[in-house]
């Protein structure tokens, strides 16, 4: 990074230009991995980067005999910064693949930039419906899910159990509304009320008082990150845990459990992955992750691990000939690698067709935090609802 530091010191632009010559003809695979590494949201990025490194360890840092170089970029949760980082990777570092990205809005800004440049965009978290539908692209693949899949699964769980009178809560922003819409696609029972709270809100006492006064049969919420931690604590503290069963998506995960511990117990989530998923790839990933980083991995990490393996499968299929885009697309569509979620296949829009499970937070081994445990399979080979809008066949 010496080049970059030099370019900064000089206010004159010419210096910045002279500092780095054109990239040498490459004999390695270059991957630009964009995620959020700084600020409070950087916690998710840390899990993703750790998992990428673990995947590289497992691959011996080579793909089809070529050395692999991963360049990490920090999007600061800002779409324009994400786009700038992507531009830098594409034009300066001349990467062959861009991967990662946590946030839908960053993804919607970055993905077209990458695919328009004729390079692969491998999403390892954000799955906005635009990219699954009308804006789908042959160079875009994701190893995660479409945003609606998970709440659809939870809606089905509650529908199948014959639960009625559900109280719904989510933050007032696009993803919050997407989650509720996904939920309502498969849950057809009565909804007592739908409440949207301020994005980033940390105190839910007023909303919980309203909730109690409506006396619902169950509660469905979507509160990612810090909002979820506050919500779960206050839900328990207000004594609602025993009164109204709580079903959630993206609210309880291996990042939030260490912060809430017992307040998560009994919590239901739906997800395509869980640390206790029984397949050799996953067991290796989880145990090696715990050994290397001393923590439970989280689904963001599993997806990122898969993203690197997906790239590896494509590079191997074309025997390291990175110019063979068609060959790599065909290889990726086969999803021919040992995924942490077990065998899955790709839909025509390059989103996974995969199983979804009902998870419950249960008491962990003595002295450890609660763990997520698979209760049952909700969807088998689930396809997202937007593939039909995608022109690819």
């Amino acid at each position, binding site marked *: 990074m010496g080049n970059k530091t030099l370019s900064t010191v000089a206010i*004159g632009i010419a210096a910045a230009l002279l500092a780095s010559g054109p990239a040498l003809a490459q004999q390695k695979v270059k991957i630009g991995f964009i995620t959020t590494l700084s600020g409070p949201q950087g916690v998710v990025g840390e899990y993703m980067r750790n998992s990428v490194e673990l995947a590289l360890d497992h691959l011996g840092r080579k793909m089809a005999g070529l050395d692999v170089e991963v360049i990490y970029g920090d999007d600061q949760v800002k779409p324009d910064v994400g786009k700038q980082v992507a531009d830098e990777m594409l034009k300066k570092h001349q990467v062959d693949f861009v991967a990662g990205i946590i946030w839908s809005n960053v993804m919607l800004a970055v993905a077209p930039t990458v695919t328009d440049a004729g390079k692969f965009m491998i999403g390892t978290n954000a799955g906005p419906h635009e990219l699954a539908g009308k804006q789908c692209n042959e160079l875009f693949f994701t190893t995660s899910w479409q945003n609606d899949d998970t709440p659809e699964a939870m809606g089905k769980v509650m529908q199948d159990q014959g639960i009625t009178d559900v109280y719904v809560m989510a933050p007032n922003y696009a993803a919050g509304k997407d989650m509720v819409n996904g939920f309502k696609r498969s849950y057809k029972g009565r909804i007592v009320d739908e409440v949207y709270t301020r994005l980033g809100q940390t105190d839910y006492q007023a909303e919980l008082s309203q909730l109690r006064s409506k006396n619902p049969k169950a509660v469905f919420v979507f509160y990612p990150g810090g909002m979820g931690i506050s919500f779960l604590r206050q839900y328990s503290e207000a004594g609602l845990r025993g009164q109204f069963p709580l079903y959630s998506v993206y609210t309880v995960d291996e990042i939030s459990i260490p912060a809430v511990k017992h307040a998560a117990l009994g919590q239901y989530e739906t997800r395509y992955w869980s640390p206790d998923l029984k397949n050799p790839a996953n067991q290796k990933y989880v145990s090696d992750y715990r050994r290397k980083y001393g923590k439970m991995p989280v689904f963001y990490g599993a997806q990122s691990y898969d993203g690197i393996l997906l790239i590896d499968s494509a590079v191997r299929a074309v025997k390291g000939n990175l110019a063979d885009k068609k060959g790599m697309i065909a290889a990726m569509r086969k999803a021919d690698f040992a995924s942490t979620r077990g065998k899955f296949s790709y839909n025509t829009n390059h989103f996974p067709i995969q199983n979804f499970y009902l998870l419950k937070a249960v008491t962990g081994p003595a002295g450890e935090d609660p763990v997520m445990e698979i209760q049952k399979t909700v969807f088998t080979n689930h396809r997202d609802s937007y593939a039909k809008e995608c022109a690819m066949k």
Partner: protein
Amino acid sequence: MNSRIRAIVPAAGLVLLAAVPLAAALLDQPFYLDLVRRIMIFAIAALSLNLILGYGGMISFGHAAYLGVGAYAVGVLAHYGINDGYLQWALAIGASALVALAIGAISIRTSGVYFIMITLAFTQMLYYLGISIEEYGGDDGMRLQVKSQFPGLIDLNDANAFYYLVLAILVLALFLGQRLVDSRFGMVIRAAKSNEVRTRSIGFSPYPYRLAAFVIAGAVCGLAGALLVNHTAYLTPEFMNWTRSGELMFMVILGGMESIAGPVLGAFALLLLEDALSGWTQHWQLVLGPLLVLSVLFLKRGLAGLVFAKNE
């Protein structure tokens, strides 16, 4: 000597900026074209903020609002299939001027910390409004499918053409900004900053002048917003986040408030520094934070103060 430096430095800067596309092409490093273009767009925004902040003494902590309004003006028209650039940019300028008029009319009645906070409050309102409007993507924002169209004049999809357009607007903003602060209007604004009572006693009520300056600054920043949305091909309420307003202020302070070109230096320094530090360590904010404190403590006249020796 001083006057020579004052003439040479901006000219040299202009030549360097004009040479970026050529150099980028020669070195096969088109990334720098994007980087410098983005920095210049923020430089225009910072420069507009300096009109009220540096010259008018009005510490607006909500200048990112106009960046957002300008971007949304373009994005919303495009959303309804209106891609005409003249119309889009006129709306961007007009709408941000109007918003600035409304915010300014109330805010300028207050002063000091109250002014800082009320401008912040208005921007927060717009931010939450942006998040709430589902039609325009809410918090996710929306993609600008087609860049602003200027048939026969310029094609913004041509990276070099777009670059030179931004450069031209920057130069024009610098030129007009200088004219403005040197004009009688500018004199009143500056006088009101240094001594409000005296300004009143010589027969000027500062309020309308301040309001006019506030509106002009908002309008110019709205244009920067229109440029930004075309640059990113994407818009989100995040453009109006309060930390953005803070960053714009930083650019102004870091660069120096006493000259029109100062904020431009500040924009280059801050954004290049951010780019370099974030490539170096994930804990770059641990370094950037104290650097900012130090620059405030020791670079009292900003970077421009280093380049140009003190006038007196």
